[in-house]
């Protein structure tokens, strides 16, 4: 009778497919991941069942925070530069080239005109610690309107959206809507930014 020889070979597992898969996934996530831009205003959007994705190209976003503060987020760096140039000129802010560049790299800004120069002159680190009060939107001093008018004069291609915090008062959002609909702007079509909720 033949003796059964114990299998002496070391059990080896070919890990190549595992590595292939793992690296494929890593590459996928690395390429698709977009680092969240440093947003000065934290907005917790309400949930809704709409599932149309937001087109970020040429998007002008009016953000309304929890404490009713209004921020303006303009999509493109070049657009922002052009916008601040116009605002600086029309409001007589005398911004320097560096201050204009500083504005063009920020995602969202919520500072009234009278504080804008000081805010932009500060170093990027200092700017983070400054609490931005928001852009005034009340009917007596509606600075948001002036920002939007400047944008409206620049081009017609922009898409307007309101990104409100779910705990913000509706009156604050209503004020933004009234601004958008004012006779100078006539923006009656816009988007409300929401998060997807599964249908109940």
């Amino acid at each position: 009778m033949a003796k059964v020889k114990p299998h002496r070979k070391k059990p080896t597992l070919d890990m190549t497919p595992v590595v292939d898969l793992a690296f494929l996934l890593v590459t996928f996530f690395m390429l698709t991941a977009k680092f969240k831009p440093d947003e000065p205003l934290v907005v917790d959007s309400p949930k809704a069942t709409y599932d149309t994705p937001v087109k970020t190209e040429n998007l002008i976003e009016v953000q309304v925070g929890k404490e009713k503060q209004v921020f303006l987020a303009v999509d493109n760096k070049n657009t922002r530069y052009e916008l601040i140039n116009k605002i600086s000129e029309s409001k007589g802010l005398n911004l320097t080239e560096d201050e204009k560049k500083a504005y063009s790299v920020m995602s969202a800004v919520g500072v009234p005109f009278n504080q804008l120069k000081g805010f932009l002159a500060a170093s990027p680190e200092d700017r983070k610690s400054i609490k931005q009060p928001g852009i005034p939107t009340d009917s007596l001093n509606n600075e948001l309107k002036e920002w939007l008018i400047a944008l409206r004069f620049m081009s017609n291609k922009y898409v307007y959206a309101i990104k409100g915090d779910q705990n913000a008062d509706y009156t604050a959002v209503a004020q933004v809507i009234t601004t958008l609909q004012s006779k100078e702007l006539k923006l009656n079509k816009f988007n409300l930014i929401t998060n997807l909720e599964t249908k109940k």
Partner: protein
Amino acid sequence: MSEVQDSGGEKKKGKKIRAKKHSTHIDMTPMVDLAFLLLTFFLFTTTLSKPKAMPLIMPDVNEVPDPSKQTPVDDEDAMTIILSKNNRVFYYFGIKEPKVEQASFDATKPNSLRKVIIEKKKECESRLKVGGKTPNERHKVVILIKADKDAKYKNMVDVLDEMNINDVPVYAIVDITPKEIEMISGL
């Protein structure tokens, strides 16, 4: 040309077979470890919830509406939703004799806003318009959405979402009237 290359290839092949005697084995465990570490990092840091857009078209406030182009709304077709503080929501039917009642955003509750809207919609669609014969000439519900000063933005989005879910054909956001504030103040 091809012949020369062929012969060259054969020579090389013969040499290689002799040279390669033992297989090279690389321990791939650290590499796999690293790959999975990166994988888990990216999996955890990516947010899957992309923002979505809810289109909203408001009536032009600057244009004086032409009365001849406006379609009058039947008293029976109108429904008004009022939003108030603490996520409360009220509704009433018609315009002439409003009877305000409270609803709930919770779809599982018996007085849920969704149920109220669905029932009103059905009721309106069951009535044919005067002189109408085809189903297209049926009545349609018209919903007015009003928010008082204490309402939250979330409630407004919820109501607009409800319009989308229930396929309400005509709805509008309107300013609240002092009479309505009075009506809900006691509730």
